[in-house]
């Protein structure tokens, strides 16, 4: 099982994400934003949190145009798995892989604390280690996590059971309390909270471990 973690200038959760993948049994390659292609045989691509390109213009906008993101788009179009966390979620929306956009938090504050997340669906490789309805504690750390999508897109996400996680208490103004969403084929997850920061006893919580463990269960060679 191989995971690739993309590193942009300004990424700062790349190593945490790599460690979470490694603990779940993945061999991890770090991939630089200027690389034009992903390593052969990659099962899942991780787009990490941070402040790619200093968040200039819009969060994730410049990263979405980097050479490696062209390969990422092709990877997902081929049905490949990907997870984007925090800034990685912003990058996935800017590439168009996931719908909607992340706006400035409604109260304008940078929020850094553990929040309650409700698992909305267990029907994905990312969430099948949980039961729908479970409430888990996962840290958030963002200034632009206010999920926006038009009414039609929101109805589609809900109708197709593609909301993966919602906030039990909305911290940032996200429409529909949405914290994370799935692609139409359910193989791409974007989420603002950081499961990789709740994946070791030393983190003060391990509610994120089930996500990485479930992925390794799905992607392990038969």
């Amino acid at each position, binding site marked *: 099982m191989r995971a690739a973690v993309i590193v942009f200038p300004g990424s700062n959760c790349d190593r945490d994400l790599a460690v979470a993948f490694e603990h779940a049994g993945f061999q991890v390659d770090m991939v630089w934003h200027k690389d034009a292609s992903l390593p052969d045989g990659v099962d899942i691509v991780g787009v990490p949190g941070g402040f790619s390109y200093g968040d200039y213009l819009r969060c994730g*906008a410049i990263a979405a*145009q980097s050479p490696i993101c062209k390969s990422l788009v092709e990877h997902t179009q081929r049905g490949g798995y990907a997870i984007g966390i925090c800034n990685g979620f912003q990058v996935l929306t800017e590439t168009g892989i996931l*719908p909607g*956009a992340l*706006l400035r*938090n409604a109260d304008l504050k940078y929020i850094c604390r553990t929040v309650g997340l409700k698992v909305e669906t267990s029907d994905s490789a990312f969430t099948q280690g949980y039961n729908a309805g479970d409430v888990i504690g996962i840290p958030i750390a963002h200034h632009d996590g206010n999920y926006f999508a038009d009414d039609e897109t929101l109805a589609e996400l809900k109708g197709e059971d593609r909301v993966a996680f919602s906030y039990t208490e909305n911290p940032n*103004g996200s429409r529909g309390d949405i914290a994370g969403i799935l692609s139409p084929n359910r193989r791409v997850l974007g989420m603002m909270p950081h499961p990789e920061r709740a994946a070791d006893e030393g983190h003060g919580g391990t509610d994120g471990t089930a996500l990485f463990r479930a992925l390794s269960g799905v992607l392990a060679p038969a």
Partner: protein
Amino acid sequence: MKARVHVMLKNGVLDPQGEAVRHALGAMGFDKVEGVRQGKVIDLDLADGATEADVTEMCEKLLANTVIERYEIELG
């Protein structure tokens, strides 16, 4: 050629920064401000031969996120 691109959040998209400015203006005594929307202005210096279509493509691909923003192009 120079081009100026105005990027604004679409109507209906919450603009918390604009709202904070509106609050501040109200607190300063400017009591006739009913709404504030904050946007971006991007000036481009373009080489000879660049066209408005080029600028439109730049807006669509990078300068604006048309999920949440609209843009206007001024050529000068």
